[in-house]
């Protein structure tokens, strides 16, 4: 049995990073706690990324839980950003959520490893046929309809 610090670290790793259950704990109850933490975390991400959660509908909780089970949180904003990018890359991001992501990408610079920062220069991003233009912090969305 290790120090309190080691044992607390092992427990948190079990709850948020998919590490194995430390000896002696109730597997079922720790699992219930892990699910409750994931639901709470999903709620925090949904507050930052309402379209991501809304457009995935019934899939939102399972998709988020699957993604988050082995990824400790970096805050609701970045968690949702990372997940939205992954879904976009896989072609699995619904249109309204893709536009939400494009608005963020146009307004902020986010390298995926450090905290997002506001862009100082204009930026243009698109999601499907919707274009997002950011100038001086203001954002316009431009639906371009092709004939």
């Amino acid at each position, binding site marked *: 049995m290790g120090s*309190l610090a080691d044992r*607390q*670290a092992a*427990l*948190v790793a079990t709850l*948020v990073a998919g590490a194995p259950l430390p000896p002696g704990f109730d597997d079922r109850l720790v699992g*219930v*706690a892990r699910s409750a933490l994931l639901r709470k975390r999903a709620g925090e991400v949904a507050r930052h990324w309402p379209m991501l959660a809304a457009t995935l509908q019934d899939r939102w909780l399972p998709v988020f839980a699957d993604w988050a089970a082995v990824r400790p*949180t970096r805050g609701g904003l970045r968690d949702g950003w990372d997940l939205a990018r992954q879904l976009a890359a896989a072609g699995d991001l619904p249109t309204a959520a893709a536009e939400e992501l494009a608005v963020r990408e146009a307004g902020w610079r986010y390298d995926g490893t450090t905290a997002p920062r506001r862009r100082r220069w204009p930026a243009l991003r698109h999601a499907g046929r919707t274009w997002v233009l950011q100038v001086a912090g203001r954002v316009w969305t431009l639906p371009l309809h092709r004939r």
Partner: protein
Amino acid sequence: MTGNPGPTYGVGIGWRPEIAGFVADLPGLRFTEVIAESLPGGGPLPPALAALRARGVAVVPHGVRLSLGGAEPVDPARVRHFAEVAELLGAPLASEHIAFVRAGGLEAGHLLPLPRTREAVDAMVANVRRVQAELAVPLALEPIAAIFDWPDDELDEAGFITEILDRTGALLLLDVANVYANARNRGTDPVALLDRLPLERIGYVHVAGGRAHDGIYHDTHTDPVPDAVLDLVTELCARHRPPALLLERDGDYPPAAALRGELDAIAEASGYPTIT
């Protein structure tokens, strides 16, 4: 400070931005609480909170991220912020939890239970003293609702809580919903725990709602307060009526009439005047 938690405030409700209008409209309100980490240490206060202060409503900062039960020393920047917020609010006391929220560089995202061991008592006591050294007002400590326990407890819950309070001189923030949740999930008697806690050390009381899920009662703060929790308020007040009882609601806000009904039910269960 044992036995002297200060003036009597009656029934209150936790201040949250989403229900600021509802809280402002409570004519009898004298006590509220704000999440310490939600305020800027250097101010200014949100106008709605400043208006409550101007009305003479006591506002208590409630910390949720200090991780006082963590094995490592509490982050000095977090302690400073906590103390600044207490001063900014002119708070009569401040509160935090008997819990940890991070370890090994990872954030748990919620309050986690401590093993009820001597080593954990020592860690908790050391961190509480670090906070008390910065804080100009009394600190109240809240035992949490735990979904699971550690495998190697050396103390029972009442012994663990009492030892931490005795060694720090801290007040008790007793959450009756947590008492109910733990007793229900462990199959123990919540009233028996009340009988073993130092009730005269209560700074104030939390009341909250929850729901059963996965066969476990969860202290959600997003569901109605069950009658069993109100019964526990009555049991508590029959033994020792605390100076204040505060409803915690953290989301899925119901219509104002339903929230007023919950505040009235707490008033009735405690014998304090209604504030609605």
